[in-house]
C-alpha cells in the first residue's frame, strides 16, 4: 500500500480534477435537467417536444458515445475547444436527462390540486412551477437525484479518457502503466479517492433531505 502514500500528491491532484469535472457537470446538469423537466410538464406542445426529445436522445445514448461526439465530432465540425470543456459538457448533457426525469417524477408526486390552486390565484406557469410545485417536489426528488449525482461522479472516470486526463482514474492508469506499479493497491487508492467524494456527497444529501422535510 506504500504506492498510495508515496503518490499522495498525485492522488490529491486527481481528486481535485475529478471534483472540478463533477462540480461543473453537476451544476450544468441540474440547470439543464430542471429546464427540461419544466419543458416536459409545460402546457405548450413544442416545449414538451423539446423536453421529450432531449431525454430520449441523452438518456438512451451510451455516455461513451456522447463523449465521443463531443471530443471528436465537434472538432470535425470545426468547433474547437479544450477537452475539459468538451468532457464536462458531455457528462452534463448525459446526466441532465436523468436529472430531468428525477425532477419530473418529483413534480408528478405533488398533488395536482397544488398547481390548480396556484393557477386559480393567477400565477403563471413559471411561477406555479418555481413557487409552488418545485419546492414541494424537492423532497421526493432528493433521493433519486442523489443517485443520479453519485452515478455522475463515477461516470467522470470515463471523461478522463477523452483527452482530459489527470482525474482520479487517469492517475491510477498512469501509476500502473507508466510507472509499472501493481494494479491492485493502485486501484484501491483510486477507489478510496472516489469514496472520499461520494460518501460525503451521500451524507450531504441526507442532511438536505432532512432539512427539506422539516421545512414542510
Amino acid at each position, binding site marked *: 500500500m506504500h504506492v498510495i502514500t508515496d503518490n499522495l500528491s498525485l492522488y490529491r491532484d486527481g481528486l481535485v480534477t475529478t471534483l472540478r469535472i463533477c462540480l461543473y457537470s453537476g451544476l450544468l446538469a441540474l440547470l439543464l435537467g430542471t429546464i427540461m423537466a419544466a419543458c416536459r410538464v409545460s402546457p405548450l406542445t413544442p416545449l414538451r417536444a423539446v423536453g421529450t426529445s432531449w431525454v430520449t436522445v441523452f438518456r438512451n445514448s451510451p455516455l461513451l458515445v456522447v463523449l465521443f461526439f463531443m471530443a471528436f465530432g465537434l*472538432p470535425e465540425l470545426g468547433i474547437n475547444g479544450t477537452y475539459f470543456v468538451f468532457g464536462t459538457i458531455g457528462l452534463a448533457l448525459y446526466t441532465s436527462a436523468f436529472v430531468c426525469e428525477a425532477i419530473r417524477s418529483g413534480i408528478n408526486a405533488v398533488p395536482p390540486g397544488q398547481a390548480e390552486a396556484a393557477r386559480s390565484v393567477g400565477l403563471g406557469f413559471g411561477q406555479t412551477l418555481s413557487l409552488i410545485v418545485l419546492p414541494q417536489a424537492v423532497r421526493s426528488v432528493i433521493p433519486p437525484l442523489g443517485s443520479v449525482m453519485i452515478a455522475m461522479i463515477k461516470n467522470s472516470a470515463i471523461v478522463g479518457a477523452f483527452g482530459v486526463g489527470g482525474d482520479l482514474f487517469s492517475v491510477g492508469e498512469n501509476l500502473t*502503466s507508466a510507472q509499472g506499479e501493481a494494479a491492485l493497491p493502485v486501484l484501491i487508492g483510486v477507489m478510496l479517492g472516489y469514496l472520499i467524494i461520494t460518501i460525503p456527497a451521500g451524507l450531504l444529501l441526507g442532511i438536505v433531505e432532512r432539512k427539506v422535510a422539516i421545512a414542510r
Partner: protein
Amino acid sequence: MRSRKPRAVAAALAATLGLVLTACGSGSTNQLGSGGQDSFQAPVAENPSFEPGTTMAKLSKQGSITVGTKFDQPLFGLKGLDGTMQGFDIEIARIIAGQLGIPADKINWVKTPSKSREAYIEQDRVDMVVATYTINDKRAQRVSFAGPYYNAGQDLMVKKDNTEITGPESLRKTGAKVCSARGSTPSEEIKKYIDPANLVLFDVYSKCADALRTGQVDAVTTDNVILLGLVNESGGKFKLVGKPFTEEPYGVGITKGDTEFCQFIHQSLTKAAQNGTYQKAWEATAGKVSEENPKLPELNTCS
C-alpha cells in the same frame, strides 16, 4: 486503410531484388510473395550445428520457433488483413530464426501486447519477444535482453505545413498542445517540456492523430516508431519533426539468464549488419516512411 503507394512497391521490389543478388548460398526455400510485397527473404542457414543442450540446439532441432511480437504496430509488427506479418521487428525475428535454420514459414507468431511481454517469456509461451521492446532495468529483472537492434527515441509528429514546432524546446514558447497516450512513458517525459495543462492524453494514438487532424492539438509525441506508423497512415498530412530526444533501445527479450542464446542473437545481428541484411530489412519496412538510415547499435553484454 493502408494504401500501397507505387513508390513503396518499387522500394520493396528493389529490396527483394537486391537480396536475391546478394544472398548467395543462403539456400532459401521460401516462395516469393508469400509474405506480401514487404517481405524480403532473410537468409536461412543450412544445417547449422549448436552445442547440445542450448536453446539454439533445441529450436534448430525442432525446426520451428515461437516469437512474440506486436500485431498492431505498422512498419514494425503488424498482422495484415491477409494474415501475413510485416515490419522491422518481424524481419529481425526472421533474421535470427534464419540463423537457426528455421525458415520464415516455420515461425509461430504470438501477439504480445506491452503489458504481457515479461509474463509470456517467464511462462515459456514464447521463445523470444521482438516487439518494440525497450530495454530497461525494471524489465531486466524479469527477462534478459539481447541487442539493442535499434535505437528508437521519442519524437514529435506535426501537421505537414507546421514550421513552428522544430523540437521539444519549441513547444513551450508556441504554447502548443501535445497529445500522447495515457500512462505511457513518453507522456511522462514530455512533461519536462510543456505545462501539464497543454498535455492531452488518450488511450490510443489513433485518437491523438485524429485530434491533430482536427486541430485540437498541435503535436503528437511518442516513440518515433509509433509516429512513423501514423505518418504512414496519414496520407501525407503529417510529418515527423525528426529530432528524437530520448533513447529507447529496442532489445530481443529472452528467458532470464539464457546467455548463450543472447550471444547467438548478437552474432546473428552482427552478421546481418555486415552482409547488408539489416539495412535491407529496414528499407523494406520502416525505411519506406522514415528518412532515417539506422546502423546496428553497439550491442550490450549478455548476462
